[in-house]
């Protein structure tokens, strides 16, 4: 435990994914430190989403290992990763369309009594007090994201930007240690983007670690300490954004890609 708590939060080691002959991810290694915002950038088709999908457990790697919080999680199911604090969002926001916005948040809360056998058998009495706490927690979160007035709307009726916000709030309800975000700013209005940037910065200040796939270099510049650059399935280089901007390799990859 003592060791686990001091090493990097996430270690990706020679991770590979092949689709037939396509090497979507071709042996990448990098780490995410505790309490940091790490960026993962690169041209379209570089393999960023595939890498994130493997880390989140949605796609099984063809090779390599993933360690989270000192534990090898390479073969672990997605829901099990979520339960130990490794939570992802999707590039195309996914909400539970026939649940309300508030319910979308509630459903993600971990360790709900009402989901267990004892809670189902015991009925309302077994979970009412916990539910009450979760509801106020979720309502507070909606306030933070300025979406309180949408609480009772079905999530399927929300705009694209609002759905993305719901997805991020849902992820936060799970009290993650590491949040994987795939292009969270895509499709958001500039003002919503700024708002989300501020929220993410605040969360990082509070100790949450983030691995952020992002196309918008301005956002990456503003948020990320370390940035990992991918192209054609490989890690091209890593470092601070200010240094990377000057690198020929990175510039070429962005132009060519």
């Amino acid at each position: 435990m003592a060791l686990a708590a001091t090493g990097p939060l996430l270690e990706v080691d020679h991770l590979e994914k092949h689709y037939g002959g396509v090497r979507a991810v071709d042996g990448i290694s990098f780490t995410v430190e505790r309490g940091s915002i790490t960026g993962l950038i690169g041209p379209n088709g570089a393999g960023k989403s595939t890498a994130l999908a493997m880390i989140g457990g949605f796609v099984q790697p063809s090779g390599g290992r993933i360690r989270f919080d000192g534990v090898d999680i390479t073969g672990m199911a997605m829901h099990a990763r979520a339960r130990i604090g490794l939570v992802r969002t999707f590039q195309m926001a996914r909400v539970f369309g026939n649940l309300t916005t508030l319910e979308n948040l509630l459903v993600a809360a971990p360790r709900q009594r009402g989901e267990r056998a004892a809670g189902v058998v015991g009925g309302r009495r077994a979970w009412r007090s916990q539910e009450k706490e979760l509801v106020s927690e979720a309502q507070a979160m909606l306030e933070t994201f300025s979406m309180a007035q949408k609480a009772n709307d079905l999530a399927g009726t929300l705009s694209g930007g609002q759905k993305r916000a719901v997805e991020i709030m849902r992820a936060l309800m799970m009290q993650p240690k590491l949040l994987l975000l795939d292009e969270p700013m895509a499709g958001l209005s500039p003002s919503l983007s700024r708002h989300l940037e501020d929220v993410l910065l605040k969360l990082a200040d509070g100790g949450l670690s983030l691995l952020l796939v992002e196309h918008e270099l301005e956002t990456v510049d503003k948020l990320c300490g370390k940035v990992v650059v991918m192209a054609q399935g490989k890690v091209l280089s890593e470092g601070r954004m200010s240094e990377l901007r000057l690198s020929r390799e990175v510039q070429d990859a962005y132009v060519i890609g």
Partner: protein
Amino acid sequence: MAWEYYLVVMLVYLGTDLLAVWGLNLEFGVAGIANLAYIVVVAAGAYAYAIVTLGPSSGNGGFQTYIGGFTLPFPLALLVGAAAGALVGTLIGLTGLKRLRQDYQGVAMLVVSLMVTTIVSADIGLFNGTAGLALIPNPFSNLDPDTARWAYVALVAVCCLIGFVVLRRFTTGPMGRTLRAMRDDDTAASAAGKDVVRLRLVVQAVGGAFGGLSGALLAGFIGGWSPSAWAYIETLAFLSCIIVGGRGSDLGVSLGTLIIAVLLLQGVQFLPQIASSPGLSEDFGWIILGAATIAFIWFRPQGVLKERRPRYRGESPSKLPG
């Protein structure tokens, strides 16, 4: 009196249909499992009830053959029927261990349904093949016929009451919310920490128990059970009740059952019989059923009663979900 007999039949059928529709709605309407083999769990309950009440297969001159053969009291036999439904439901649910898209899942289960019917029809030793089982004891056969009939209605009503209380434990509260989330997007549900594979098995066990109980009650009432009683098309009739009533809404699908099962399938029996074509009214019922279902899918996909979600003002829901 004829009308009284007819009323009893309608009520028993309504009750057993309700149990089955609730179970299938839990699976399909709430949890998003396209279980097109649902009628198999109903059959499992009916056969289980039959063989634990019929006594040894050598009885009645040994004119029918089947496995097992016990004489349990009817409350226990009904529980055995529900348990058989749960077991078979779980087995059918194993097809979902490898996660399939919902449409493929539906096709796989339809094939399961056809396979099981074929096997049970072909194997005389199992449940007496195509001829099926007869002389299944009615639990109230020692009462006078009129009292016995109404006693059976009461039994079905009690089962429905208990069933509805159990059902609501799964369709409301945090459990119902989680199952509906899984229905809406199972990938996102996994990403939210839900063990989708396990949840589906649980749902198919519970839904199976509802179907099994329904089948057991039917077998005890009719006194017979054969493969013609549980063709795959019966699952589609239950699905129609769900689509017409309102997918995911317990009250809605109950209303749908009332509309479909009684007004259409049973109501056509009031049509004049045409001697030259004896199956006509039944065929006519299926046609009305199909047309009503398609009409709802086109013009009112949410059904008669739309699934309602709890609305929150302050900290407690101001309305209970439907």
